[in-house]
């Protein structure tokens, strides 16, 4: 297990290296000089040159990369030229809303997906199964921001049950906090659940046909226990993988959803930075989110061993 863990973590190094080079290159292929973009058109050539030196833009490319990556490894993502604060501060002050939204959306996704997936698998081929699968096909074709817009039209405009924009932090009280997050989280979570439902169904179907299920049934294990303890636990590995992978989709969705509902999270930070051409922030946010995504998938891999002892033994 430990050897496996070490190997798995070592394998991350090339991935993260490529990620950092790609992100660095994207920002440096920018047509036009960032220094003159920052200073605007009225700047003199001298000012631009001074800023170029200050930002280290006159150095050769590999030198610039080295400087940048060494800073990043020390936790310094640079300064935002427009917000006059460090990029890491900006990210952390925008982190809480996104985190709340992502967690709530993931909970909603699982609450929808797992029961539906199990039901569909148990009643394979029936109308219930077909309905569930039909909805999941629909869910895979709807981008979450469209569902968000439709929900605003339905719940916000017609029914006026919930607020359709804004954000209240957790300190304002749990219910107030949740009230503002329900619509965005439902629109994200419902779409995420489409894929997880499919995975749960097919993974359950595979397990239900196993011999040990027949053995357990003939031994007289009760239905409920049979499904949750014998089947679901074994079917959970692929489901877990999908949950890890959908985190990427969740972040992607959150970026767009936040701008729709005016939630001051990471998504809004990056969109505002694009408008301002604040490249340091764009670079920092993309790097931060990617690392978070990579590490969540690492945790999922580690959880495999916890859930399934076979994986643990195999890896020894």
């Amino acid at each position, binding site marked *: 297990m430990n050897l496996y863990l070490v190997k798995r973590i070592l394998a991350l190094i*090339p*991935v*993260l*290296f*490529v*990620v950092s*080079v*790609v*992100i660095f290159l*994207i*920002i440096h*292929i*920018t*047509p036009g000089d960032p220094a003159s973009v920052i200073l605007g058109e009225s700047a003199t050539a001298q000012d631009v040159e001074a800023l170029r030196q200050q930002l280290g833009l006159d150095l050769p490319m590999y030198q610039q990369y080295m400087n940048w990556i060494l800073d990043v490894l020390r936790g310094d993502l640079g300064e935002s030229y427009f917000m006059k604060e460090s990029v890491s501060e900006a990210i952390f002050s925008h982190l809480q809303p996104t985190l709340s939204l992502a967690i709530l959306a993931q909970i909603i996704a699982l609450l929808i997906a797992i029961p539906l997936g199990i039901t569909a698998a148990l009643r*394979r*081929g029936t109308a219930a199964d077909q309905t569930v699968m039909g909805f999941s*096909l*629909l869910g*895979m*074709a*709807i*981008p979450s*921001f*469209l569902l968000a*817009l*439709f929900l*605003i*039209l339905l719940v916000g*405009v017609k029914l006026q049950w919930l607020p359709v924009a804004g954000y209240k932090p957790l300190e304002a009280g749990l219910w107030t906090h949740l009230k503002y997050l329900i619509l965005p989280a439902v629109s994200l979570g419902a779409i995420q659940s489409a894929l997880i439902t499919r995975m749960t169904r097919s993974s359950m179907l595979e397990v239900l046909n196993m011999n040990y299920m027949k053995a357990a049934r003939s031994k007289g294990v009760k239905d409920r226990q049979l499904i949750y303890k014998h089947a679901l636990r074994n079917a959970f590995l692929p489901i877990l993988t999908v949950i890890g992978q959908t985190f*990427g*989709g969740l*972040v*992607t969705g959150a*970026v*767009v959803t936040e*701008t*729709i509902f005016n939630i001051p999270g990471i998504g809004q930070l*990056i*969109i505002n930075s*694009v*408008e301002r*051409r604040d*490249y340091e922030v*764009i*670079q920092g*946010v*993309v790097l931060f*989110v*990617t690392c978070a*995504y*990579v590490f969540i998938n690492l945790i999922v891999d580690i959880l495999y061993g916890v859930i399934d002892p076979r994986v643990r033994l195999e890896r020894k």
Partner: protein
Amino acid sequence: MDALGSNAKRLELSQVKQTLKKEQRRLQQRRFLSNTLMLTGNIIIVLITAFALVGPYLVSYDPYEMDPVKRLQPPGAEHLLGTDNFGRDLLTRIVYGARVSIGVGFSVALISAAAGMVIGLYSGYYRALDQVLMRICDGLMAIPGILLAIALVAALGPMTENVIIALGIVFIPYVARIVRSATLVVREETYIEAMKAQGASATRIIWMHIAPNTLSPLVVQATFIFADAIITEAALSFLGAGVPTPDPSWGNILYDGKLVIFKAWWMTVFPGILIILTVMGLNFAGDGIRDMVDPHSSLSFKRKKKK
């Protein structure tokens, strides 16, 4: 006698071949028709493509012409789907937007399929290259697609061409991966070994003998990328980081619609439904092609039906 006998045999053989071919074709046709999902998908795609190609000749308004007096008119006889916040005819905008959105999606699918195929084939064939190229793919795939696209468009500048380039880069690794794994299987086949023994060049083996065998997974993947690219373009344009205004794209119309969502539901609902329909059509077609070309999944498909 001998020559006659072998001639007769040859004739027989060609007859058998003919009947087999016929049977195979019939089987394929039946599979195609019994695959209702794929049929539905194809019908949707054909209709929407026709809508994008012919539509502009049928509408009588200009997609850029503003008319402040007729702002935000609900759907009616004069403007079938209503007007937008600048008084432009919504149906016209959606029809022209279909060209942009579908055009972007198709170009992205084409670019990523072509580049991904080359990368996948060579990294599957040359092990040394594999290590480098696949690590790069891993890295690119680790960055959430829309963030990568936003950063690329921000760096390249907001132009439709740049949106296509950015999304192309985002989706190349997904093709490369699939083609690579197909290549890894094919390169171990005996006939490839035979080709090598005969002295065929690597280029010949890769392009004449391996590439055709990777085509079906490639086409399936490209179909899904087509759908994903339409969604991502819409999201980018919706965020104001995609196709620049005033050019119509479905995402742009939604962007304008968001500003007036409380007054004009039609600006959100109509382009939204079109996006969903198009993506659904492409997903169905992709699933259908996969069922058709992959004997395993089509078998399971039949078994499922029987139960």
